C-alpha cells in the first residue's frame, strides 16, 4: 500500500489538521469532523444533530443558499455529510485544482453559517422525507440501528433514536441551532483532513489563509456516556406492518473501542469467524446446516467498527421464516458461541478473516473519500490517524485464545434481543 506520509499539526485556534499527500491521481479529498454526534443531543430534541448537519449546507456569510453545492459541483467535485453517534463529518472530493475552493467553503461555514428560520423549516421537511424514505415507508426501517439501542441501553444518549421523532424535529428553533453551533462547532472541537494530490507547504499556506482567522472558542467538555451492561437478557418485540418475514437482532456490550483497542479488535475477528463468508460458523450452522434463517450477519458497531466511543455494540442479526421459533435460533447461536468459547478457532479460520480484512482496508484506502474520512475519524477518536495503517497488522496479531475469550464474554444473561414481527396479514 502506498502509505501516505502523514503530517499533523494544530492551528492557533485549536483546529487539528491531518495532511496525507499522495499524487497517484490528480484529485483531493477534504473533510471536517466535528466532535459531536447524536449521543450529545438534548432530551426533547431527538434528531437535532442530524438536522443541524443539513443546515450546515444551507449557506454561510460568503455563500448564499445553494451556493455550497454549486461551487463544489461546478468545480467537478462531489460532497456529503453524515451524522454518527459521536461525531458529524462533512466532506468533498474534487479535482486537485479545486483544493482552495473546498477549504474556503469549509472555513466559511465553520466561521459564520447562516442559520435562518426559512432554511430550518425547509430542512425539517427534507429530513422528515428522509425518515419516511428510510424508516417509515419501508419494511425493516431502522433495523437494527434505531430499534436495538433502546433495548440494550438505559440512558437517553445511548438509547434514543438518532433520526429523531417528528414532534421533536418540528420544535427545533433557530435559537437551538445557534446554541448548538456555539457549543460544539468550535475549531478546537474539529479535525480538518486533506488527502490526495497536493504539496504539504501549499496546503498549509491555504489552510492558514482560510481557517487561521476562525475565532477560537472553548472546546466543550466531553461527557462520559458510560452505563452498566444489561443485568439480564432484555427482550423486546417491534411490530412492522410492512415486513413479510420476522427478524432478530442480538446486542452485546463490548470493550471500549478507544482505551482497549486490541480487546475491541478481538470482537472484530470474532465477528468474521462467526458470520463472514459461506464457511463461517453461523452461516454454516444457521443458513446451510439447520436452515433456520435466510441471512445472518455479525459485526462491531451499529454503523461499522471504529466510528464510536464507548459504549459500543456487538450485533448479530438474522432474518427467518415465520415457522421457526426465535428461541431455536438463539439456542443455535449460543451453542456456536459456546463452541468457540471452549475450543479456540483454528489458524486457518483466523487467516481467512485476517486476509479479508487486509483486502477490505486496501479497498477503503483506494477510495479517496473513505481514506480521507478514516484518517479524520481516527485523528478525532484516537488522536492518531496512522492507526489506520497499523490495523492489518493488529488484526493479524489476534490469537485464537483471544477470540475464544471474546466469544466467552458474549453471555446470554447480559444482552438485548430485539425481534421484528410482521403484523398479521399486513404483508402482501
Amino acid at each position, binding site marked *: *500500500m502506498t502509505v501516505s506520509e502523514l503530517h499533523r499539526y494544530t492551528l492557533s485556534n485549536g483546529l487539528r489538521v491531518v495532511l496525507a499527500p499522495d499524487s*497517484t*491521481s*490528480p*484529485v483531493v479529498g477534504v473533510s471536517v469532523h466535528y466532535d459531536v454526534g447524536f449521543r450529545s443531543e438534548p432530551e426533547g430534541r431527538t434528531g437535532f444533530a442530524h438536522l443541524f448537519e443539513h443546515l450546515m449546507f444551507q449557506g*454561510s*456569510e460568503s455563500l448564499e443558499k*445553494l451556493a455550497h453545492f*454549486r461551487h463544489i*459541483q*461546478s*468545480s*467537478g*467535485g*462531489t460532497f456529503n455529510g453524515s451524522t454518527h453517534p459521536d461525531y458529524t463529518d462533512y466532506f468533498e*472530493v*474534487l*479535482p*486537485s*485544482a479545486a483544493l482552495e*475552493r473546498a477549504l474556503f467553503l469549509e472555513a466559511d461555514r465553520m*466561521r*459564520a453559517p*447562516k*442559520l*435562518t428560520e426559512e432554511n430550518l423549516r425547509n*430542512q*425539517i*421537511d*427534507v*429530513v422528515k*422525507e*428522509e425518515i*419516511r*424514505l428510510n424508516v*417509515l415507508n*419501508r*419494511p425493516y426501517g431502522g433495523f437494527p440501528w434505531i430499534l436495538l439501542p433502546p433495548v440494550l441501553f438505559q440512558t437517553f444518549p445511548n438509547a434514543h433514536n438518532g433520526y429523531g421523532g417528528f414532534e421533536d424535529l418540528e420544535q427545533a428553533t433557530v*435559537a437551538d*441551532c*445557534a446554541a448548538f453551533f*456555539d457549543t460544539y462547532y468550535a475549531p478546537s472541537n474539529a479535525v480538518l483532513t486533506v488527502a490526495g494530490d497536493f504539496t504539504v507547504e501549499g496546503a498549509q499556506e491555504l489552510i492558514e489563509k482560510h481557517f487561521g482567522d476562525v475565532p477560537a472558542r472553548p472546546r466543550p467538555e466531553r461527557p462520559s456516556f458510560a452505563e452498566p451492561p444489561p443485568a439480564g437478557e432484555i427482550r423486546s418485540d417491534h411490530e412492522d406492518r410492512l415486513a413479510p418475514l420476522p427478524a432478530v437482532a442480538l446486542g452485546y456490550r463490548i470493550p471500549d473501542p478507544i482505551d482497549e483497542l486490541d480487546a475491541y479488535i478481538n470482537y472484530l475477528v470474532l465477528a468474521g469467524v462467526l458470520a*463472514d*463468508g*459461506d464457511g463461517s460458523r453461523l452461516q454454516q450452522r444457521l*443458513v*446451510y446446516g439447520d436452515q433456520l434463517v*435466510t441471512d445472518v450477519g455479525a459485526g462491531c458497531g451499529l454503523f461499522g467498527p471504529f466510528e464510536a466511543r464507548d459504549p459500543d455494540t456487538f450485533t448479530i442479526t438474522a*432474518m427467518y*421464516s415465520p415457522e421457526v421459533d426465535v428461541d431455536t435460533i438463539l439456542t443455535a447461536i449460543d451453542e456456536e458461541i459456546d463452541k468457540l468459547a471452549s475450543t479456540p478457532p483454528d489458524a486457518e479460520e483466523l487467516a*481467512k478473516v485476517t486476509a*479479508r480484512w*487486509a*483486502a477490505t482496508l*486496501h*479497498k477503503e484506502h*483506494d*477510495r*479517496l473519500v473513505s481514506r480521507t474520512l478514516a484518517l479524520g475519524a481516527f485523528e478525532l477518536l484516537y488522536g492518531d490517524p496512522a492507526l489506520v495503517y497499523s490495523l492489518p497488522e493488529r488484526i493479524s496479531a489476534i490469537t485464537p485464545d483471544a477470540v475464544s475469550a471474546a466469544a466467552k464474554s458474549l453471555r446470554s444473561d447480559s444482552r438485548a434481543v430485539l425481534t421484528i414481527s410482521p403484523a398479521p396479514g399486513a404483508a*402482501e
Partner: protein
Amino acid sequence: MSRSADEIGRTERGPRPLPPLGEQRAATGLSSVDKVLDNGLRVIAVHQPTVPMIELRLRVPFAGDDPMHAARAEVLAATILTGTDKRDRIAFDTDLALVGGELSAVVDPELLSIGGNALASGFDTLLDVLADALTGATYPDDEVEGERGRLIERITVARSQPSVIARQALQKHRYGDHPFTREMPEASDVAVVEAADVRALHTACVLPRGSVLVLVGDVEPARAIAAVAGALGGWQSDKSASVLPPLPEITPQDLLLVDRPGAVQSQFRLSAQAISRTDPRYPALQLANLAFGGFFSSRLVENIREDKGYTYSARSSLEFTPDGATLLVDTDTASAVTAGALLEIRYELGRMAMVPPTESEVDTVRQYAIGSLLTSTSSQGGLASQIAALAILGLGVDWLTQHPDRLKAVTVEQVAEAALEFFAPTRFTGVIVGDAAKLTALRALGGVTLQ
C-alpha cells in the same frame, strides 16, 4: 457566550470572494490491453497499482425469452459458486478468503455478472476459482434445493420494498410483458426450478463468446491476459452468449397510479426514450440530463427539495441497454405533497424544453461531468465497473479516456436541442405508487390513470 443566529452569521470583515480554481494536472494515462481470446471472450486488463489488489468483472450476455428463464437464471446465479468436482461451497469460500478475495454472481434480464476482487498476490487463485465455476459448476441437488427456498424468502422481502414495487410497476407500464421486465422472478416459478434445469441453462448460456472480462489493479496487463488465457482456456463453445433483443420504443402515455394502501410516501418513476452512448447527440444529452436532475445542483433538486421540501432525494438518470437508452426520473414524496410534486416535475420538464440550460448551467454540468469521471475512476473498483458497463456496449478504455474531450466540445445550443428533444413532458410515461385514497388531488392535475 451566547450569540444569536444573526451574530453567528456575520463577521467584521464581511463576505469573502470565492477563490479561483488552480491549475489542473492531467490524469496519467492508463496502461491497458484489450484482447479477444481464442474462445471468443474479450478481456480488458488495466494496470492501476494504487493498492495491491485486483478487481474482476465478468459480464455474460444472458437474455432469454422462455417464461421460466428468469427463475432458472436466478437459481443459477445463487448456486454457480457452490459446487464443482474440485470444490464444495466451503472450499470456494476458503480458497477465496485466504487470498483476501470474494466473488459473487447476480443476474438481470440482460446479463449474468460475476464480480469480485482479491489481493494481487492471489490473482491466480481468483482466476482458478472463477474458471472452476465457469467450466465445472455441478449445481448439487441439495444446494439448489436450499438456495431455492432462501430465494423465495428473499424475493418476498424484496417485493415488500417500495422501490422494488415501483420499479416493477414502471417496467410493466412501459414494456408490458417483454423479457426485459422480468427483473425478479415469481416465487412460484422459482419453487419449481430443478437442478437439471439449471445445469442445462449453464450449458446453453454461460458462454465465453460475446462475454467480457475486465481486470483492473496491481497486475501487469500482459501478464493478466496470459493468466486468463491459461486459466479460462477450457471454457469453450462455438455458440455466442445471448444478447437482449432491442426494446420497443417507449410510448408516451398517462402516468399510472398504483395503489399501495397505508403508504406514507409516494414513489414517482417517470421514463422517456433516449439514445445510446455512441449517438453523436449523447454528450449533449448527458449534460442536459445533469442540468435537469442528474446531480444535486440541478433544477429538479433545487426546486422540489431545496425550495419546496417535498423530498429527500430526486434524480434523473440514463439507463443503457445494448441497443439504446431511456431517461428515468425518480423521486419519493409524502402523500400530502404528491400532487404538488407532480406539478413541479412537469413544470421543470416543460422548462427544460422552453427555457433551456444557460451558459452558466452548461459550464457547471460540464465541469461536474469531467471532474466526477476523474474521481469515480480513481479507484480500482470504480474504474473496473465503469469499463465493464462500457465494454458490454462494445466500447472500451479509449471511449472513457476520450470522453472529457467530447464533453468539452458540446455547445450551449446542442444542450438546448437535446433538452427540447428529450425532456419535453409530452414524451414521458411512468408510474406513481402510493396510497390512492390520500392522492385524490392528482385528479385535478390530470394525466394520471388509476390502475
